[in-house]
């Protein structure tokens, strides 16, 4: 598995685009900064929705209002995350592909995306059910798993930089 991914990484690193990105010293730090701003928008929105579902936030907007306002911003920020993540991967493919935490991160992203899209659809299908204090069963589990996955994603993301050299 690691051999195949290392092979891909070397191929990406040999492309002209990757070479250009590697030579421009400002690209990766700038891309990472935009990545952090974007992840803040996604995680800030997710946590506020999750705490609302857990009944931990003070009175405020209803769950459906929160979903209507925040989920579109989450999707916009996710697009920026994908784009900047792609830039970082093309610029430093080996660093990403050899680190197991990178693959854990990708796995958790797929999980949390599927969960979030499903949740947003469920709320839009039946807003009244989500806006009562007795929310559908599973709301609390969704909130806990979603927050856990986002914390895990940030951990793995930050640890790519600290662990990748251990796998060379």
């Amino acid at each position, binding site marked *: 598995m690691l051999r195949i991914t290392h092979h891909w990484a070397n191929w990406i690193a040999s492309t002209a685009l990757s070479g250009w990105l590697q030579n421009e010293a400002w690209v990766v730090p700038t891309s990472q*900064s935009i990545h*952090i*701003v974007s992840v803040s928008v996604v995680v800030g929105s997710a946590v*506020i929705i999750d705490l609302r579902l857990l009944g931990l936030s*003070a009175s405020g907007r209803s769950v459906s*209002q929160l979903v209507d306002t925040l989920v579109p*911003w989450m999707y916009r920020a996710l697009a920026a995350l994908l784009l900047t993540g792609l830039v970082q991967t093309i610029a430093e493919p080996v660093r990403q592909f050899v680190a197991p935490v990178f693959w854990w991160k990708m796995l958790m992203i797929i999980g949390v995306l599927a969960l979030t899209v499903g949740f947003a659809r469920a709320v839009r299908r039946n807003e009244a059910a989500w806006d009562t204090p007795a929310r559908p069963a599973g709301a609390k589990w969704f909130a806990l798993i979603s927050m856990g996955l986002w914390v895990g994603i940030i951990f793995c993301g930050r640890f790519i930089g600290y662990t990748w050299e251990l796998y060379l």
Partner: protein
Amino acid sequence: MTVPGFLLAAEHTSFAAAMRGEFGWEWLFPIVETLHVIALAMVFGSVVMVDLRLAGATSRNSAVSRLSSEVLPYTWGAFSCAIVTGALLFVSKAHVYFYNLQFQLKFLCMFLAGVNMAVFHFGAYRHVLEWDERHQPPRAARLAGALSIALWIGVIFFGRWIGFTT
């Protein structure tokens, strides 16, 4: 105590030694740094909601005062966590960070964000009930919201660049 003396004293604490990976805790710095990232994500992610409302860009159907009281407690809670984790990161190499340009610019942005907040709070926000429900808040409020977003993005950018320059 002089500034260099303070920096030196900070670096000699056992907190600082642990953060530098002494006592076999080489993973402490990355862990505290990750907690710092989670905290700052909550600070920016929450404050930007209020700022975008002030700028007239989103959440227009929520009253400004109601949105603020719903969201800003998260901002302050997360900011406290960012201060604690940030202080731990700082003491590990206090003099390196203190004299680092990006670190200084980060704190300049944070200071200006604080000034901006104070000016808004004691200015346009005192009459918030007059424009609480308006989709487009008054110019002073829109300016405060836009400035706050720009300054916090500056904090994040310079913060990330510290890691590339120290």
